């Protein structure tokens, strides 16, 4: 802008610059100084005009004052500075040549009007802005309140509609608000509940920590807790709940309320109790069952030092007869009565009676003094059974066999204790019943071994734990080895080598004897072939024969003949290499069906020896029709010949038997020859072959080979 130096425009600009410089520091404008000055320039121009106008224009001056407010000069200091500036410079820069007195008067009046205009505008702006912000706050609050209202309505709906009980109490425990679900759970009205105190709800079944947790929560030391709690309902019933209590704090974190959420678990709890009862009790007698008994027994066995247990295992004698003759219903009634009587025997703390199943019951006593109490318990039980039980109008005598186990806790497992009790009970039973027996470790061990061997037998065969030893059979005439008896042994992993007397009866019992016998036959025949291949060509050595024992079970087996033939053929061994030994007792009363396979084998050339001859009540006349080639005299006949001179009666008997055998064309073998005198005596009596320790103990097949060689060369 090109203003004439010191012309009116230049003077006006200079006035504006002074004004702006004074005003800018107290404005809030975001405009630059230059922009601000540009804004003031027209105002200065107006003031200049007003100064020199013919009449005084108060409105015009007021407008200038108001314009300052519009330029964001809202600090009253801006007015002071403006008036100072106008007062000092307006007349000076804009007065021209007009009379100074009039100009000063006019300036003064203009300032009054400007001040009034500024004040008016500032007041209006302030009011407008206050109004605006207040309105904004109100609207914002309205929005929030609306949202809050909606949210409160939602929360109320949640609170009221919730299936779980909700209650709010203050920190003193006074209940402030509860929902419908909670009222229904408690069976109370809102009025009855409101204002009551949480602490009034103690219950005898409260867990020990219940009220400690409560105290911690209301004192602000705990944010929440969770437990199962019972409450008394006004109708006398008990409400069980799953209770969660939380501490509610205000915005500053100060504890304010407690919030309880509760779920009614009464039904579930009852159901659980019932299921638990059913799972642990016998449906017929109502006594604890095996499950509960084991739990209790395990607890007793896990008790601390000094604690003991005593257990009575009862099995009724002859219960099966009752069941079979009077029917199961009667049997059941008998069991119920027995259960009731037993129950009355074990009423002291730490005692219990359970039914394990069938007619088996157990009674348990625990504590430090069970050595005494278990005997008393057993006495009570036996006494309880003395009085006959009336079932369907009959008085039934009830007897029982009782096995007692007593001992300190912490040594045995429940299963071991029960097995011991079971074994002991069987001892009582096999001793005639109607008695009790005390557990005995040795008896237990025997029974346990027997049981263990029986269960281990099948795998023993698979694992090849059996082996065969051979005992030579020696010709009494020339002392040559004529054959050997195969004797099976079991190399048990724990018990070592076991003789046939330990396991053959078990194998007979379980039927394992058939595969075991077949294996023995195969092995023995294989060995016989080996010997024949070795000695067959040697001069003077007769063919070696193998003796294999046949058990009664094998004898009756339909595949006996077929299996034997197959084994012989497969080995390429002639039947005369085999002698099957059958005990006398197995053939007592044998009919033709049983003898037929033996006869077939005998016809083929297999020798049949009658083992243990003289121990059974054999019908000598019967010998004639038996397909037998050899008699093996039992060792009892030869025992009397061990000393010198020999028992003459024994001599006579043996002589008679030999004579009878020979007349029937049977060879005679004697067992148990232990001395040379014995051997000599038997030779004189005419026995054909012998076996016994005098010649050799049973041993591995190589030993027999050596023996045969000695025999051949010697």
């Amino acid at each position, binding site marked *: 802008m090109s203003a004439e130096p010191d012309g009116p425009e230049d003077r006006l600009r200079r006035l504006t610059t002074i004004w702006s410089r004074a005003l800018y520091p107290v404005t809030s404008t975001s405009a630059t100084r230059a922009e601000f000055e540009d804004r003031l320039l027209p105002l200065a121009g107006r003031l200049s005009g007003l100064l020199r106008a013919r009449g005084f224009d108060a409105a015009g001056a007021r407008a200038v004052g108001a314009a300052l407010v519009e330029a964001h000069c809202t600090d009253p200091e801006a007015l002071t500075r403006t008036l100072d500036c106008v007062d000092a410079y307006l007349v000076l820069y804009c007065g021209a040549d007009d009379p100074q007195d009039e100009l000063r008067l006019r300036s003064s009046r203009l300032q009054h009007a400007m001040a009034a205009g500024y004040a008016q505008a500032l007041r209006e702006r302030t009011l407008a802005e206050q109004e605006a912000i207040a309105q904004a706050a109100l609207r*914002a609050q309205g929005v929030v309140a609306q949202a809050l209202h909606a949210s409160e309505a939602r929360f109320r709906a949640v609170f009221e509609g919730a299936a779980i009980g909700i209650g709010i109490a203050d920190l003193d425990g006074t209940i402030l608000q509860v929902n419908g679900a909670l009222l229904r759970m408690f069976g109370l009205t809102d009025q009855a509940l409101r204002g009551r105190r949480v602490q009034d709800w103690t219950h005898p079944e409260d867990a020990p920590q219940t009220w400690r947790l409560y105290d911690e929560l209301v004192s602000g030391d705990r944010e929440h807790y969770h437990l199962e709690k019972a409450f008394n309902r006004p109708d006398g019933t008990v409400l069980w709940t799953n209770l969660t209590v939380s501490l509610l704090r205000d915005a500053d974190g100060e504890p304010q309320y407690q919030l309880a959420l509760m779920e009614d678990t009464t039904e579930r709890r009852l159901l659980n109790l019932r299921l638990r009862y059913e799972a642990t009790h016998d449906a017929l007698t109502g006594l604890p069952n095996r499950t509960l008994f084991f739990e209790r027994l395990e607890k007793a066995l896990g008790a601390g030092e000094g604690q003991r247990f005593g257990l009575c295992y009862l099995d009724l004698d002859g219960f099966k007869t009752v069941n079979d003759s009077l029917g199961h219903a009667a049997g059941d009634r008998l069991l119920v009565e027995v259960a009731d009587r037993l129950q009355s025997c074990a009423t002291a703390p730490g005692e219990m009676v359970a039914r394990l199943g069938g007619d088996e019951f157990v009674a348990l006593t625990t504590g430090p003094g069970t050595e005494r109490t278990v005997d008393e318990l057993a006495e009570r039980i036996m006494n309880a059974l003395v009085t006959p039980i009336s079932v369907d109008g009959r008085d039934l005598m009830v007897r029982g066999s009782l096995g007692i186990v007593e001992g300190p806790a912490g040594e045995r497992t429940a299963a071991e204790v029960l097995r011991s009790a079971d074994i002991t009970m069987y001892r009582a039973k096999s001793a005639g019943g109607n008695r009790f027996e005390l557990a005995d470790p040795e008896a237990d061990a025997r029974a346990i071994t027997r049981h263990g061997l029986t269960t281990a037998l099948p795998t023993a065969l698979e694992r090849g734990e059996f082996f065969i030893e051979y005992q030579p059979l020696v010709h009494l005439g020339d002392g040559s080895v004529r054959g050997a008896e195969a004797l099976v042994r079991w190399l048990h992993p724990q018990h070592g080598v076991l003789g046939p007397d330990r396991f053959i009866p078990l194998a007979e019992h379980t039927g394992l004897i058939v595969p075991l016998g077949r294996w023995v036959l195969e092995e023995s025949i294989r060995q016989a072939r080996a010997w024949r291949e070795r000695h067959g060509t040697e001069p003077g050595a007769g063919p070696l024969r193998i003796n294999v024992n046949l058990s009664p079970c094998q004898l009756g087996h339909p595949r006996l003949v077929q299996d034997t033939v197959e084994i012989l053929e497969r080995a390429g061994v002639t039947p005369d290499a085999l002698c099957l030994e059958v005990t006398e007792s197995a053939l007592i009363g044998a009919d033709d069906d049983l003898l037929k396979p033996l006869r077939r084998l005998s016809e083929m050339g297999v020798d049949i020896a009658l083992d243990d001859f003289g121990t059974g009540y054999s019908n000598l006349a019967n010998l004639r029709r038996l397909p037998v080639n050899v008699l093996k005299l039992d060792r009892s006949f030869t025992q009397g010949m061990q000393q010198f001179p020999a028992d003459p009666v024994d001599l006579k008997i043996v002589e008679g038997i030999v004579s009878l055998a020979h007349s029937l064309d049977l060879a005679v073998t004697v067992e148990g020859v232990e001395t040379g005198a014995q051997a000599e005596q038997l030779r004189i009596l005419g026995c054909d072959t012998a076996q016994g320790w005098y010649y050799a103990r049973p041993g591995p097949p190589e030993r027999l080979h050596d023996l045969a060689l000695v025999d051949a060369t010697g």
Partner: protein
Amino acid sequence: MERPAWAPRSIDISVPSVSRIYDYYLGGSHNFEVDREAARKAMEFMPGMPKIMQANRAFMRRAVRFAAGAGITQFLDIGSGIPTFGNVHEVARAVAPEARIVYVDHDPVAVAHSEAVLADVDTADVVAADLRKPQEILASSRLERLIDLNRPVALLLVAILHFVEDADDPYRAVAELRDALAPGSLLILTHASYEGIPVPAERAEGAVDVYKDIRNPLIMRSRDEIARFFEGYEMVEPGLVPMPLWRPESAPEDEDPYAFSGFAGVGRTA
């Protein structure tokens, strides 16, 4: 707003608000006595507080003009507060009449006031949202109506980041916003700092404590910490500087010493 819509924080005008305090510093009357009381208390320690706010406004005005001059017509002003004179939309439209502006604030009163002011302005709107949740801002329908994120945007974070505590990870929020912006967008930022304050730091702390007392702590950050907000941006000349030194339009030596408190800068996305 920070709280979910179904449970808003109630509005308590007995609690001072930083937006209204700011208005008071700028000579406005959009404030209540509690706000003025807090402001006066801060001014006991730092009498030049208003000058800092004024420098903020002046910087913003220059930066908005710069953006509009660079062809940007979309403005996103987060932490806009009470819309007093010299608003972004006024400044921007003076240069670019087609400019579109979205204001964002989490103070419901500021938002309500903005709504009233903008009732008749079709090309500007306000969103109630929080800088700490950028996705809520970006997903807002009001923003979608006015701003095309495929074109450059001037993002204003003027005097707001110093109200976001480190625990709320302001850097993540700023990065999330940056990632949503088209290339050529600008970040216009100012931030409080102990650096440049014409009083001893212990004295400035007195003012900082006032904000702590009103539960709106003022987080003073160093220049380096502030510079990190521009990660992924190319600084526009003259870089991160005290407010009066950013492309001044009048002699900086005329400025009040308080105007040099804190830093201002503009960055451009690649």
